[in-house]
């Protein structure tokens, strides 16, 4: 018989695999004997495999459900009734089982070869396992490994030293700028200061613009953004000690320069009344009178 031929799996396979292979093989024997019992003389290997798979699934499902029922009632080991309920639930009439077990033509199958149950690999032990506190009975499960509940910080303290921050900001900005300009220089046209090595100190080639004053006069978006930010924080700044110059003359000059830009609010309501010849609508030409 097949099972006798195949004593054990490959020597190289792991114990866990061996264990499972042995059980599977037993299932195949079961399927084969059932087929024989039913009168088949031979079966394709693939068919046997499929049937084995089906029976394995069935048994697994019975086990899983039985376990579920047992856990549902706060137990950890399934009882007979769990199995019965499960089988019933799966549409199997349990009452027919004793009769089937006692049928005459059944074949006796040898027990699967003994293999070592697979060893559960040791979990990494992190720290000391906690023992139960006194109010928890000792039969209760042990605490899981500490790594599952102990928090282990993985970040470092941010550097808050002013000097280092400035240093970093400065070099970061410089790196970005350098990388950006180098990139632009590499991807576009360049001008060079040296004849021997045109790649040293590349200058992005100038490009004449049709309306050069626009880019030269209008603030860039970046600057506008800065302006908005500083404007919103301006009220706070106003109280800064630095902002109160001791020199009255200085104060005057500053205020003179700072004044402006603010349109008097009173005037806004008058906007509509402004009579300025440049705002008047353009007249339609008069129709020439016939002479």
């Amino acid at each position, binding site marked *: 018989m097949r099972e006798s031929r195949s004593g054990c799996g490959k020597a190289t396979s792991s114990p866990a695999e061996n264990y499972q292979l042995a059980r599977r093989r037993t299932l195949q024997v079961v399927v084969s004997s059932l087929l024989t019992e039913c009168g088949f003389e031979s079966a394709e290997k693939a068919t046997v495999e499929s049937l084995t798979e089906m029976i394995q699934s069935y048994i697994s499902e019975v086990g899983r459900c039985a376990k579920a029922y047992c856990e549902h009632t706060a137990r950890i080991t399934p009882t007979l009734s769990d199995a019965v309920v499960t089988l019933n639930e799966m549409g199997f009439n349990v009452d027919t089982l004793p009769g089937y077990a006692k049928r005459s033509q059944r074949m006796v199958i040898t027990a699967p070869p003994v293999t070592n149950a697979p060893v559960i690999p040791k979990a990494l032990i992190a720290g000391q396992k906690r023992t139960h506190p006194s109010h928890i009975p000792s039969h209760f499960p042990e605490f899981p490994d500490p790594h599952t509940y102990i928090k282990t910080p993985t970040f470092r303290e941010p550097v808050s030293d002013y000097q280092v921050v*400035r240093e970093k900001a400065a070099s970061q900005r410089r790196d970005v700028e350098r990388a950006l300009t180098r990139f632009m220089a590499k991807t576009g046209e360049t001008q060079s200061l*040296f004849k021997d090595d045109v790649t040293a100190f590349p200058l992005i080639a100038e490009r004449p613009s049709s309306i050069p004053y626009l880019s030269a006069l*209008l603030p860039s978006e970046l600057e506008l953004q800065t302006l908005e930010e500083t404007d919103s924080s301006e009220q706070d700044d106003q109280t800064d000690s630095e902002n109160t110059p001791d020199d009255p003359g200085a104060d005057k000059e500053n205020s003179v320069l700072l004044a402006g830009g603010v349109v008097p609010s009173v005037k806004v309501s008058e906007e509509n009344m402004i009579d300025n010849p440049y705002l008047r609508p353009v007249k339609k030409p008069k129709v020439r009178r016939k002479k």
Partner: protein
Amino acid sequence: IPVVSGFVELTIFPTVVNLNRIKLNSKQCRIYRVRVNDLEAPFIYNDPTLEVCHHESKQRNLNYFSSAYTAAVSAVDPDAGHGELVIKVPSELWKQGDEMNVLKVYIEFSLDQPKGGLHFVVPDVEGSMAERGAHVFSFGYQNSTRFWFPCVDSYSELCTWKLEFTVDASMVAVSCGDLVETVYTHDMRKKTFHYVLPIPTAASNISLSVGPFEILVDPYMHEVTHFCLPQLLPLLKHSMSYLHEIFEFYEEILTCRYPYSCFKTVFVDEAYVQVSSYASMSIFSTNLLHSAMIIDQTPLTRQCLAQALAQQFFGCFISRMSWADEWVLKGISGYIYGLYLKKTFGVNQYRHWIKEELDKMVEYELKMGGVLLHPTFGGGKDKDNPTPHLHFSIKHPHTLSWKYYKMFQCKAHLVMRLIENRISMEFMLQVFNKLLSLASTASSQKYQSHMWSQMLVSTHSFLKSISNVSGKDIGPLIKQWVDQSAVVKFFGSFAFNRKRNVLELEIRQDYTSSGTQKYVGPIKVTVQELDGSFNHTLQIEENSLKHDIPCHSKSRRNKKKKIPLMNGEEVDMDLSAMDADSPLLWIRIDPDMSILRKVEFEQADFMWQYQLRYERDVVAQEESILALEKFPTPASRLALTDILEQDQCFYKVRQGACFCLAKIANSMMSTWTGPPAMKSLFTRMFCCKSCPNIVKTNTFISFQSYFLQKTMPVAMAQLRDIQNLCPKDVLNFILDLIKYNDNRKNKFSDNYYRAELIDALTNSLTPAISISNEVRTVDNLNGDVRLILEEITRSLNMEKLLPSYRNTITVSCLRAIRMLQKNGHIPSDPSLFKSYAEYGHFVDVRVAALEAVVDYTRVDRSSVELQWLLNMVQNDPAHYIRHKILSMLGKNPPFTKAAESPLCNEALVDQLWKLMNSGTSHDWRLRCDAVNLYYTLFGLTRPSCLPLPELGLVLNLKEKKAVLNPTIKPEQGLDTTEMTGNTMGVHIPVMGFTSSEDEIDMESPHDSQAFIHHHLNILERPSTPGQHPVKHPARIILLSDNLVLFFSRTRCTSTVDQAVLSLPVTPLPSSFGKESTSSSKHSGDHHHHHHHHEHKKKKKKKHKHKHKHKHESKDKERDSHAFSNSPASGRSVRSPSMSD
């Protein structure tokens, strides 16, 4: 292709019976027809300034050119009754002349690609003209209106105006006077702007600008309208938010309303000058606009606005009688502008400015030999030239060197200040008020010649007002500073006579060297003694050099007592530095700058130090800083450092102290102790407390600190160590400033600061140690220079991605690169600069790049670059750039007359000669620039590189003879012009110098002048006293100009008229055909028009009036309507003022 066509109608009231010729000014206009009272009138067009010297002369000497040029300008001088365009009044009307009837002169003309007078800016991008921001504006140096329409281009011929401009519907035409209405043309694709200027105004004060402007009505003064190019409106809003205060200020001090009923500011690109003022409008450079983030530009822009407004009162509203009276207008406008400076920016700024202007002017006069404010000319002969030291004539504004004219303005306002010192400001302002109220009364009068002349100021009338108002005689002052050129140069020294307790002051003068004159009169001397400050007025007399001044204090050392200063303040001083025997702390000569002088005064170093520390006048502080450069001692160092730290001290003094300290530190190199000068000071003021090598993040809240922070690194970079290198410490310090610069939290832009840090790097450069002729390569780059170059390339590259305001950083980088080249660190090569100098870059960048090319040209003696520059002078679209190139070449010349140079060759002489002789006739300023350059390169006489002509001397004599002896020759020319008379089809080409052969051949300007005198001198308009004698007492008086400019095909409106657009580039025949069709259509209108006109005449006889109409206009009704509203009658004087 810009083409402007239009017509002008002048109404002339003859004041003589035999008026048979009318002379007008016109340049580069193509004149199609002239009609006088509906009769076709023959005309001659001759512009002797097109080509100054006609002979293919081998003379090439500047003396010859200058006199020829002066004669040419004189020949068409409107103040002398001359003009380029001479119209013969049809004989049918001569009788009419007897009855002194009005003559209406109608001139139809066009401008084809004008080279001067009007400037078209058309950006080369996609889109319609409006989307492209295309615009046009009028410009010129002094009276240049003749470039864009025929007129009497004089500041002294006033008339009222009616102006019409038809432009594309997307454009706005801004011009002088009140916009009455805007009307669409019949096809609705164009608009006509109707302006009326009821205040009598000289043609030279008329201007125009057309563009797709954004319009901003001033929120404070609704009569004031601002115009800027598309997208700049936010900047305009901010920049103009201050204007009303300037208005208020002037109206208050002058106790006079702004004279026009409206005011317009227009900001244009490629402006000729930053500020130009015309009647009721000013044209500014668009580069004056700035956002709220910009610090440095803010005061500059406000100053420009204030100048423009001051000129509205004096210059536009009040005009001048003659060129010799120009100084009064420039003086008054400059003076009241100074008052504005004083009020707005403070007394310190004002005094600093006065000192700066005085120094500048004195330096120029000493170098060039005198600026004459009020020239009087005798017979117009060379002998009577009041300024023989100059290589140009000052007889006309158009022959003046630009620099001279600037110094002239400078001197004018300084002299006004002297007059104020003499008669008090109160009287001064009363005089101005009187001038303005007289003019104001006159302006609302109907035409009466004697009334309108009140709107013209002359030296004589101004001085008379002064003596009437103040009762003081300022004759000597005027004689000294106005009628006479040159400045005074004093040398002072002193000794203290202990026995007599007397200060023996010696004041000597140098009045023999060029640009100096002798001063006799009072001079103020201020002596600061231990017991206080005392003013003494000494009398400078012919032969007295020594003056004894009694001292008030004994030379005692009362340690405890405080020392009273001039301003009443009492201060503690450490007197240990003093001379124990003397009570003198410091002495100042002419502290109020009430003489136009240069003072070199000798006093001990400790006195200068006391003066710097304790004298409160910024001028004294600046003088002592200058003097301390010569005393490199620890005590000077301490005094300067103390000033630097004192934040009550005026920031410009502190800036000056920075540079002085750097110089002193260099002189004290071997004994200097401690860190490099200013380093610890800078650290203390601007760096973080916790980490002194890192600068604080920028806030720029205190502007004084900001300016100091900008200046200190630049000054520090001038420090040198024993090897004459910039100390490593300092360089690293500056590099760190750049590295740690952080502007993220700042509401102001740091572009000027960063630019100055680059300047600091530039300053730190020293010549490379090199083996001669070694090729500069990357490998042998010095380590420090490599760091500097890194920064410069990075900054320059970043500018491409995030451009800074006015590209300040690019400008600094270009200068730095040139400096690296010059010092031999990198290969000297102009190609980078040449690319940045091309049209299409921001103007500041171009100028910086051109400056580098000019420098390269000199250092490398490169004829290729010189040619390239001269090409640009001839071809660049921007007039300012052309002017700038020539003036930079003059300042940093490739060679001079004193030295031999391979560049100096015959071809160059020819080229420059051609440039000034004929190549620059469209721009007075540029021609004078070319003359200046020619003078710098070759001198007054024959350039040395020319081959010696045989009998050169004889030729010179001959030439001189020719100058003095004008020959009358152009009979043939006269014939030609007589023939032209009969039909409008006759056309005299006026464009281009190549066609001059076809024109009336004037052998020389003298000839043409003589010709005009001889044949046409029948009419002489009134000339100012002391000018040309009037040979024939004939006069015409110009009453009104009717100007219609029809912008049929300006670049601004090129989308308009396809038919017109398709004209060939040389449009003479075809465009003429077009014009004639339009004019025939037009003449139909015209008749009607004249009907109307006659009608008008009946109604308003003797009143000046003007009207205009467009070619296509069918709006005669409107014309008449406008007319009845227009002149003189019922003008509402509404002044744009807050008080409204």
